[in-house]
């Protein structure tokens, strides 16, 4: 056996599947035949090796519970398998345990130098030593009953994987399968999409900013500014001119103007424009002409106000006098009205006296009537003393006299009295109004006197009687106006200068706007070259390089796989054919060949066709199409063992596990199988079988001092019965 490989030195199994109490099998690197009936523990023993090394139990594929408690013996709390592997540099001890109720297993590996490592580190250590993952192990080391024929009847991809692993191309295959450019492409797409989003946002902003820039340029054009006049430099030139002009004028009014440094941005230019406008206002206020004009204007306003008040007072007095005159013309003067009132009062007095007389007469008649009513024998009239001739006639006469004549007279007199009274009331009203008008006239007169005093005060001179106040005021206003005009002339010249500067300030603002908008566009354009976007682009180029490398390495590895496979098959074919001759000894298809060709579609990989042929007539068939089940098992074993004999495997497992190899074989084939096993010395063979015929043949052919034999008794609740 090659000394650089690991063989099984011992196996100790406890609490695993059919095993209850721990049992140790010392194999010392020798081949071993495990014999026993169904459910005696053979497959559990082989499976224990698989589980210990990889934590997997292939026979349970797809039939497990979540916690994998079916691996633990019903009467044990935990499963434990310990394997000692004899290797080139000493013994490696591997222990795997699993408690009931948890899927997690604990792995511990002790290397020949005494170093103990656990779990993931132990797994990596084992991989480094043996060079196998579980899939490789089940293809290249442990030939399960159910997997033997897969080599022949499995689908093309399964056969491709199995053959690659048998040929030792498993590492290359692992590499090529691991080289997946899709995640790289996905990452590229993801980063590119994120970058696109950012660039789209920036582009939108740039277009918007550019529109504002164009608007600003158009506005500047309206002020006569185009092309080269719209730069920061041009703005600074205008700014310098403005401040030179302002400095010159400001000196005349003792105003200090600070020097400006060239602006570095449109905002600074705008700031300078605002400062210039403030300075212009300050100068305007400080100019002497302005001050004098302001004083004169104030004086002018005051005189105008005084004149206005005076004119109003004159108007009011004229109005009052006119009202008195008009009223007196209509109603007479006060004396005349008072005379009329007296005459009216006198007439009223006379009428009242007359009324009293008539009233007395009426009273007398009433008394007489009353008398006559009381004294019916009266012979004379009680009023006129005439003899009463006809009493009734007299009473009638008196009653008529009292009722008609005297009453009529009283009514007439009362009407006259009322008329006179009304007349008097009217005259008194006229008199009151006349008094009021006279009062108004007097107040207007006094007000005018006050206004004349105000004028005197405003002009600072006395106003003599008879002087034309309005004319005096007009003369004064004319004087002020002339003075204002005198001061305004130099001021207008200054104002023209200011207008010129303000026009420059307007240009400066237009340039500032253009520069600002241009700066905004430039800033946004710079965003396109920002560190973040550059990083994204660097990541994209790096990923693209990675994708290229992944593709290239993948192509290389797959190319190597394709190139190596035919050579490796050629190398193994003599041994495979030799075993095929012995095991199959097909009456017609005497030759076996394995065709290797690269796949023509999809990813590059090897396609293996295992064919049998008849050299004499060229007859050829795929083994899976014409061979019996037993023959197919034998072909599979031929390939498996032949490649093992030729040492094509790249891993470091120095043992092969074969479960029930004689399945479906006739006696002659079993004899050949025994001869094959007995002549295989390249690897430690661990073979399980329940075949009595095979055991009998082996007993006759093998020297058991060099080969271990482990027999299993009938299983019971106490566990597996091992008899070495």
């Amino acid at each position, binding site marked *: 056996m090659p000394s650089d490989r690991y063989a099984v030195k011992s196996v100790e199994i406890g609490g695993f599947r059919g095993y209850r109490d721990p049992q140790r099998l010392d194999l010392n690197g020798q081949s071993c035949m495990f014999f026993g009936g169904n459910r005696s523990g053979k497959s559990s023993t082989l499976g224990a090796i698989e589980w210990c090394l990889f934590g997997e139990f292939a026979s349970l594929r797809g039939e497990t519970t979540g916690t994998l408690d079916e691996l633990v013996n019903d009467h044990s709390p935990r499963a434990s398998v310990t394997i000692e592997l004899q290797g080139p540099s000493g013994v490696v001890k591997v222990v795997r345990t699993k408690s009931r109720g948890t899927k997690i297993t604990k792995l511990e590996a002790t290397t020949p130098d005494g170093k103990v490592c656990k779990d993931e580190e132990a797994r990596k250590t084992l991989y480094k030593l043996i060079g196998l993952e579980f899939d490789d192990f089940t293809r290249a080391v442990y030939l399960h009953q159910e997997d033997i024929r897969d080599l022949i009847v499995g689908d093309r991809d399964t056969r491709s994987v199995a053959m690659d692993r048998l040929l030792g191309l498993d590492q290359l295959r692992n590499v090529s399968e691991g080289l997946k450019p899709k995640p790289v492409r996905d990452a590229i797409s993801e980063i*590119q999409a994120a970058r696109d989003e950012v660039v789209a946002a920036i582009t939108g902003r740039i277009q918007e900013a550019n529109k504002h820039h164009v608007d600003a340029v158009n506005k500047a054009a309206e002020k006569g500014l185009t092309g080269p006049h719209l730069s920061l430099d041009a703005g600074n030139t205008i700014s310098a001119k403005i401040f030179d002009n302002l400095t010159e004028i400001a000196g005349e009014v003792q105003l200090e103007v600070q020097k400006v440094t060239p602006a570095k941005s449109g905002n600074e230019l705008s700031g300078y424009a605002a400062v210039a406008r403030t300075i212009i206002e300050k100068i305007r206020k400080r100019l002497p002409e302005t001050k004098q004009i302001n004083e004169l204007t104030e004086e002018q306003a005051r005189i105008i106000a005084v004149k206005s008040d005076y004119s109003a007072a004159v108007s009011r007095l004229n109005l009052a006098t006119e009202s008195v005159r008009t009223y007196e013309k209509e109603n007479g003067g006060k004396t005349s009205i008072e005379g009329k009132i007296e005459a009216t009062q006198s007439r009223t007095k006379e009428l009242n006296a007359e009324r009293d007389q008539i009233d007395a007469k009426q009273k007398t008649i009433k008394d007489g009537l009353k008398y006559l009513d009381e004294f019916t024998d009266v012979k004379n009239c009680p009023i006129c003393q005439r003899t009463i001739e006809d009493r009734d006639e007299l009473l009638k006469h008196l009653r008529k006299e009292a009722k008609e004549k005297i009453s009529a007279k009283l009514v007439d007199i009362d009407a006259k009295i009322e008329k006179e009274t009304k007349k008097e009331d009217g005259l008194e009203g006229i008199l009151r109004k006349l008094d009021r008008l006279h009062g108004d006239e007097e107040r207007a007169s006094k007000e005018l006197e006050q206004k004349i005093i105000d004028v005197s005060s405003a002009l600072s001179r006395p106003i003599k009687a008879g002087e034309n106040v309005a004319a005096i005021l007009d003369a004064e206003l004319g004087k002020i106006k002339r003075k204002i005009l005198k001061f305004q002339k130099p001021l207008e010249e200054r104002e023209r200068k200011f207008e010129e500067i303000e026009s420059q300030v307007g240009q400066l603002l237009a340039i500032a706007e253009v520069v600002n908008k241009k700066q905004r566009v430039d800033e946004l*354009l710079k965003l396109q070259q920002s560190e973040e976007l550059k990083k994204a*682009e660097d990541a*994209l*180029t790096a990923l*693209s390089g990675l994708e290229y490398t992944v593709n290239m390495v993948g192509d290389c590895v797959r190319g190597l796989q394709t190139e190596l496979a035919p050579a490796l098959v050629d190398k193994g074919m003599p041994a495979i054919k030799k075993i095929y001759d012995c095991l199959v000894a097909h009456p017609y298809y005497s030759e076996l060949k394995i065709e290797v060709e690269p796949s023509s579609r999809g990813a590059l990989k090897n396609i293996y066709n295992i064919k049998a042929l008849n050299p004499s007539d060229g007859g050829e068939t795929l083994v899976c199409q014409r061979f019996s089940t037993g023959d197919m098992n034998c072909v599979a074993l031929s390939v498996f063992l032949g490649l093992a004999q030729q040492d094509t495997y790249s891993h470091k497992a120095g043992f092969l596990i074969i479960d029930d190899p004689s399945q479906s074989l006739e006696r002659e084939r079993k004899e050949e199988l025994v001869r094959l096993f007995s002549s295989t010395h390249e690897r430690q063979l661990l073979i399980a079988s329940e075949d009595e015929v095979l055991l009998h043949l082996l007993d006759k052919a093998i020297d058991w001092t060099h080969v271990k034999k482990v027999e299993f008794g009938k299983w019971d609740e106490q566990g597996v019965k091992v008899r070495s």
Partner: protein
Amino acid sequence: MTNFQTYKKLVSLLKTHGAQEFGRICQGLLEFALRRKGFSTRGRWTERPDILAEKSEDRYAIGSQATKDSMIGLRSRDLDGILEYQKRGYVPCLAILILEPNVRWTMIRANGLKPGVHSKHALRAFELRDITDDVNEAFPGIVEDYFGVVLGRGAAVLRERL
């Protein structure tokens, strides 16, 4: 002319003439840019490669790709047409226009590329720096010079003048 102004002009050309004609226009403009930088060129308007360009010892078989998207689909026939010229001593080259406000060409080595959809920026991993710089220096000026006539008449005017 700034890159942004170039970008605006190219977007106008794309909007006016549509994607297919825009591709032909960009091919013509690219050929002019190469000439301005001292390359002698031969434009091939109906077959691959689009442009054969030579300067001193450098010879390039160029396929032009001018699309507005950031991802670019490379077909086998696009690549094969260029790669064929590798045997004749030409560097197989894809000229890819990145149509962004910072518009630019990236000239990339085409051998080793696989057909499929690629990110334009990612392909810069294979950029041929010197010729890329040459083209990008000259291109804005070429666009400025020919924009007016091309906007009106499309690629035909470039074909006439090349």
